[in-house]
């Protein structure tokens, strides 16, 4: 292969490629070379703190100062209140559904009559065909949305 008489472009390129691993491209490698040792140095400085010193605090001082403990407490109380209201609503819902099922089992055909079973409150929303009002079921106290369509 070395004694080939024709000096091609490709042969020169091949020589360059063959040489390249031994003499790597200058720009990139230099960047990496400059970066890597500094990183190692930083890590070393972090981990080589003397262990015989006083133990570090678990929370950094910044984190402790940013949120006041009283605020955390008030947030927790609010969350607990919300949970209680949700639980109450769920219990009332179960009672409401039970009444429907019981009445269906007994064979009441119109399960509810509007005047007797519901107390109608203010209007919540309005659609193209319907009006939506807030109601409470009188027996259980469960709040219901009542959507009323007009018959034509």
């Amino acid at each position, binding site marked *: 292969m070395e004694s080939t008489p024709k000096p091609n472009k490709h042969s020169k390129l091949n020589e360059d490629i063959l040489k390249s691993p031994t003499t790597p491209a200058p720009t990139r490698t230099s960047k990496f070379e400059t970066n890597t040792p500094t990183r190692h140095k930083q890590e070393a400085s972090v981990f080589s703190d003397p262990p015989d010193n006083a133990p570090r605090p678990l929370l950094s001082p910044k984190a402790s100062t940013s949120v006041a403990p009283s605020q955390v407490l008030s947030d927790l109380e609010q969350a607990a209140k*919300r949970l209680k*209201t*949700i639980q109450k609503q769920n219990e009332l819902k179960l009672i*409401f*559904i039970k009444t*429907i099922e019981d009445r269906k089992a007994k064979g009441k055909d*119109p*399960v*509810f*009559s*509007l005047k007797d079973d*519901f107390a109608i409150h203010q209007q919540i929303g309005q*659609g193209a*065909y319907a009006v939506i009002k*807030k*109601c409470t079921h009188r027996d259980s106290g469960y*709040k*219901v*949305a*009542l*959507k*009323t*369509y*007009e*018959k034509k």
Partner: protein
Amino acid sequence: MAIHREIYILAGMDHPNIMRLYEVIDTKNHVHLAMELCPGLALNEFTAENSQPVKMRNGMKGAFLDERLARDLFRQIVSAVAYVHSLELVHRNLKINQIIVIPETKAIKFTDFGFATSF
């Protein structure tokens, strides 16, 4: 009639992210649907309230929801849509105003099945 269709479709549905229909009360001049009460905001209002303004690198201004919240909301929306489609039904009027978010529980409710049909 839209009422009959809505009642027929809603009566067969049972999903936590779809407004539930409890009973139908028929009177002389009106039809009343007793439905689950969902005290909350429409999705566009909710996102406008809860997103935080952020300046991007290229100078554009934007507002972003918290990623966890957005993921949770989107999961619920997709699950409700999948449920509706699994019953071979289409909502046909699904837009940002029809989706309600309850701010205490971050639960999503689909409303207004007046245009829904089977396919």
